[in-house]
Structures are given as C-alpha cells and as structure tokens.
C-alpha cells in the first residue's frame, strides 16, 4: 500500500516516541542510544528549510521540462488530443520518477517526492478534466480518485485533505440536481456525513494498522470537524441558500433559529468535549470555530461600531485569559497551564517527578545538565513564548 519502506516508517515512530520519553527523562540515554542503533531509519528526510528548497527546485525542473516537451512536440501534435497525450505521458513519467526516487533513493518528505507527487497528480487529473471537458461532478470524482490514491500510496496529509474536500464536492454536486427538497436537506446530509467521517478518523487514530496514516487521520479529523460545523453555520447556510434558490438578498431562511443555535452550540460542544477528553486538536478547532461564530453574528447584527467591539472584546479576552492562567497554575481536573513537553519547565518535571516517585521508587536516571533544543523564533515573538 504505502510506497515507503514499512520498517523504516515504523522505526521512525519508535524514534519519535523514544525522543519524547527521553525528553521527559523516562528512559536513560543508554537506552535511547540502544533503541536508535537497533532501529535504524533508512530514509532520506532533510531539514524543513532544505525540504522547501528542494521542493522549489524540483517544481522548477518539472515546469521547465514540461515547457520543453510542449515546445518540441506541441508542433507535431497540433490538436487537443496530441497535447493531452503529451501531458499524460509526461504525468506518467513524473510519477515513475517519483516511485524511483522513493524506492531507490529512499526519499521521504524530502521536498523532491512532495513536488513530484503534486505534479504527477495535478498533471494527470487536470489533463483528464480538461480533455474530456468534465462537469463539476465528474471533475470532483476524478480529483477524489487521484487524491485518494496518492493519500493511500504516500500517506501525505495535505493530499488526504484534498481527497476529503473533493469528497464533499462530490456530495454537493450529486445532491443539488435533485431539486428543492434535496437542497433543503443538504446542510443536514453534509453534517451527518462529516460527523461520520470524523468518527471514522477518530476510531482509526489509535489503531496500529493505520499508524503510517496518522497525519492523514489528523487532517481528516480537523477538516471533518470544520465541515460538520460549517454545514450548519447560519452564514454558510443562508448565503448558499440564496445562491442556490436565487433568493433576494434580504430573504429569511426557514429554520433560521436552528442554524443560529448550531452556530453557537457546536463550538461550545467542541471546546467542552476537548477539555473533557483532553484533545488539543479538538480544542483548537473549537476555539477557531468560536471566532467564526462571533464573525457570523457580527455579519448580521451590528450592535456597536467595530472599534468599540474590538476594544471590549480585547478587554474581555485579556481578563478571561488572565483569570484562567491564574486558575490553572495548579492542575485542575488534569488540566494545567504550562509550557509543553518540548520546552519542559521546572514545574512540569517537578510535578511529574512527584507523581512518578510516589507510585514507585525510580532509579537515579537523570542526566545532569540536559539541554532542550533552543530554537529561535523569527522576527516576531516576545522574550517568552509566543
């Protein structure tokens, strides 16, 4: 299924996990080094900035090769079919190079494989869509097939996001032709389907068989949470209804109250559940959507000029965060305000140490002077942590 070496991917998970345990000083450096030598990673994954550079350079090569091919064969095949064939052959060639780089050169998220994957998928899907002059539904299905294949083959999270979005498009374009009733139930269908996708992704998150797709799963969770919300958000439903039924701009949509309740209730549910289940992704999505809910409200009811709202909201946010930070100085129901693992604070290791040492007697395995990666933020950022 996945193109990359399974053993190396597994070992990569082992490295990640051990590094986490090491930074929390749960395993000693001896164990950590033994793990690394026993589970080597035979993959080429450069630094993020190098990856960006390699992505740009590879994209340039693909673009220019495409141009050269068009110059050379564009004259020979002076018809749509000719051009379509040239593009298709080129797309297949790019895909072959991609498989070659993964199999032989062991590239994994190196920028080279990213660029080749995106180029081959967009060349082939785009070629089919333009040559057959596809309808929206057909085009969505084509994109869905290609992106789903690439997600499964390469485990790329952004590609999985494209697959999910094209899936929603397929849903939209296959329901709307069925008339007024179909359009009316569209928000509910989208919501139920999105929720189903979320629950599916959620159930696979800790499933060992899906471990190579963990980033795809995260992307799916995030996007399905967002689309669950947006499908019943008042603004989205109203503007879409106006566009689909060609209603006047001041139209009142039926069931408006329901959508208003959903607009505010869903973010609240997300945040509440996230605090209960302690999931960062759900919490962040909930906070983001809470902001969307506020903007939705502002779009229809302007109770005060924007600057007054900004000033007031600013004061409220500062006060709320002030009191919450103060309240969470000590852990409450397992929730705390502290810098995360990577930047371990004295306090955290202290608390954790206490809990751990109370449960059993640990051996002295603390290496003195352990240093944490001192990455520097760019221009922005306070002296603390922004």
């Amino acid at each position, binding site marked *: 299924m996945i193109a990359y070496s399974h053993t190396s991917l597994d070992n990569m998970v*082992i490295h990640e*996990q*051990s590094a*986490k*345990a090491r930074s*929390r000083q749960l*395993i000693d450096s001896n*164990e950590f080094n033994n*793990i690394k030598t026993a589970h080597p990673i035979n993959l080429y994954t*450069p*630094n993020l*900035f*190098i990856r960006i*550079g390699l992505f740009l350079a*590879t994209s*340039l*090569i693909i673009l*220019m*090769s495409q141009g050269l091919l068009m110059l050379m064969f564009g004259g020979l095949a002076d018809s749509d079919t000719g051009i379509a064939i040239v593009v298709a052959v080129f797309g297949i060639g790019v895909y072959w190079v991609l498989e070659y780089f993964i199999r032989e050169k062991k590239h994994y998220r190196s920028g*080279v494989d990213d660029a080749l994957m995106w180029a081959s998928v967009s060349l082939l899907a785009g070629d089919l869509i333009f040559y057959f002059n596809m309808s929206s539904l057909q085009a969505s299905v084509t994109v869905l097939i290609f992106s789903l294949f690439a997600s499964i083959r390469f485990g790329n999270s952004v590609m999985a996001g494209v697959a999910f979005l094209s899936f929603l498009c397929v849903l939209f374009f296959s329901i709307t032709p069925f008339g007024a009733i179909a359009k009316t139930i569209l928000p509910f269908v989208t919501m139920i389907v999105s929720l189903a996708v979320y629950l599916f992704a959620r159930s696979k*998150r*800790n499933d*060992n068989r899906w471990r190579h797709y963990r980033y795809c799963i995260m992307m799916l969770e995030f996007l399905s949470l967002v689309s669950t919300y947006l499908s019943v958000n008042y603004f989205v439903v109203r503007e879409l209804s106006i566009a689909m039924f060609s209603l006047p701009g001041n139209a009142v949509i039926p069931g408006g109250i329901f959508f208003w309740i959903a607009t505010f209730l869903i973010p609240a549910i997300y945040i509440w559940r996230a605090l209960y*289940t*302690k999931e*960062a992704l759900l*919490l*962040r999505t909930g*906070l983001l959507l809470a902001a969307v809910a506020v903007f939705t409200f502002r779009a229809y009811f302007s109770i005060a000029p*924007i*600057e007054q709202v*900004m*000033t*007031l*909201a*600013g*004061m409220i*946010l*500062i006060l709320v*965060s002030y009191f919450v*930070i103060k309240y969470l100085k000590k852990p409450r129901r*397992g*929730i*705390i*305000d*502290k810098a*995360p693992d990577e930047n371990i604070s004295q306090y955290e290791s202290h608390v*954790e140490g206490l*809990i*751990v040492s109370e449960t*059993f007697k*640990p*051996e002295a395995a603390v290496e003195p002077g352990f240093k944490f990666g001192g990455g*520097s*933020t760019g*221009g922005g*950022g*306070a*002296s603390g942590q*922004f």
Partner: protein
Amino acid sequence: MKIGRLMFLNTPTMNIGVFERLFNENLISEQSLTRIKVAEKAKLFSIHWELRAILYLGVLLLTGGLGILIYKNIDTIGHQVILGFILLLSAGCFYYCEKTKLPFSWSKVASPNAYFDYVLLLGCLTMLTFIGYLQAQYNTFGDRYGLATFIPMVVLFFCAYYFDHLGILSLAITNLGAWIGFAVTPLEIFKSNNFTDAELIFAGLALGVFLTLMAHLSAVKKIKPHFCFTYLNFGMNILFVSCLAGMFYFDSFYLLWLIPLGALVFYFYRKAIAMRSFYFILMLTVYGYIGVSYALVNSLSFAVFEIVYLVMMYFIASAVFGIIFLIRMNKKLKTR
C-alpha cells in the same frame, strides 16, 4: 454505545505499544516501561499555547480598537476621556513592568511571570497610539514628521533592551525602517516599497548593513546575544531585496550588482555555516539564484527563437545543481 465509547476515548501522546515492543526486545528496562506507563497515566493536559494565543489576540484587539476609537472621535469631547484612558493604560503597564522585572543584565533575562511580555507589549502599543494621536491632533512634532517616528523608535529600542523583549525589538526595527522610509516587514517588503526610487534602494542597503552590523556586535560584544538572530534576519532580507531591486532598477549596470550580491551570498553563507542555520542557507540560495538567473536571462538576446530552449535547459540544469547543493548543505550542517 460504540459511538459513545469512541467519543470518550482519550488520546495518549506516548504510544504504550511501542514501548512494550521495545521492552520485549530488551531495549528498555522493566522499570523504564513502568515509569512510562505511570507517566502517561498521570499526564496533564496543558492549554498553554491556547491561552497565550487568546491573551495575544486580546492585546491586539484592544490596542487596535483603541487606535481606531481615538481617530474616529477626534473632534468630540469623548476623545479626551479615551486619551486619558490610553495614557493611564500605557503608564500602568510600564509601571507594572518596572515593578516586576528581574534585574537588568546584558545577557538574556527571563520574564518574571506569565503576563509580563503581554503587559509590556500592551504598554508599548498604547504608547505608539498616544504619540500618533499627539501628532495628529496637536501637531506636536510640527512638520518634522521624522520626529514623530523617531521618538517611538528610540523608546521601543530602549524597552527592548531594558525589559528584554524580542517582539518589541522587531517593532523597533520596523519603526527604524519607517523612520528612514522603508517598509521592512516580510509581507510589506515587496508590496509597499517603491523600488523605482534609487534613493530608497541605497537607504535599504544602508539599513541592511547597519542591522547586520548590530547582529555582529550583539553576538561578539555579548550585548543581548540572543537579539542577534532577529537583527540578522531583518538585515539579510533587506540587503538581498535591495540588491535585487538595484539589479532590476539600474538597467544598464545590472551586471555590476552581481558583485555585492556575490559578497552577500558569501557573507551569509559563512554566517549560516557558523550558526548551523538551514534557514539562512535556503534564503541565500533562493536570492542568489534569482539574481544570477536574472542577469543571465537579461544578457541574452531573444532574436532567435531557439534561445528559449537554451533558457529552459539552463533552468533545468541549474535547478539540478541547486538540489545537489542543498542536499550537500543538509549533510554538512547536520554532521558538523
């Protein structure tokens, strides 16, 4: 029932299965495994970043709102009240920071508490609004517009060093740019600057040299050495952009600009190696590549159509070269 169970599932950040496997392979001791299991159970859920983001958003909204509020109410009686509020807020913030800050040192000083950085930011931003208001309403600094940006800049630089705040330093550098009429923030650097103005190009070069010098001094003289990266980052981007702009602008001398461009690439290459910075390697590669490619394509005459083939082949070959260079750099910076 199943769905309910799914939704109540908690997510551990450490995968116990992995460690059980490592234990079976005799790679970790039983004690370590138990320790991991206990720690994972006792794990606390931190909402640190979320709270900081809300706090930061609050500061931005409040200062932004106050800024607009004062300009909209400039001719009403209410604006005196708002002005008083802004002044009080700013003074209160600075008073708080002065009271709570840790003793000054030329090296890095930690924030005394969770709010310090945000209070200082609020104080500085409201101070900027206040000075802007004074200029707009009473024309305090007259037509010497430079003074209206010069004074906030000095105060910002002072605060950045005195209270040790990287965000304020970035603000100060942006104000320094504004003072000499140059937009320096990454997003504005291309949009707002009119690079058809020779004066601006040289001003940009001078500013870039100055910032790079500041970076050098802060590292060598140990004057807040952790400020080095911020200075260097601004300096590098301004220098490269000004240099490329010079190349595009001085049509007849564009080849001459390859000399300063080469010098810049060389200087920042040395810096990148010394700092082991992948970021600088990427930036100098991209800027250098744009410069060289521009010079090359510009010097060709397109009288013969076939020259297009040559240009395309140049791009393919040079990009391959770029890939090899970046891969070697990755190796070099990693293994050193």
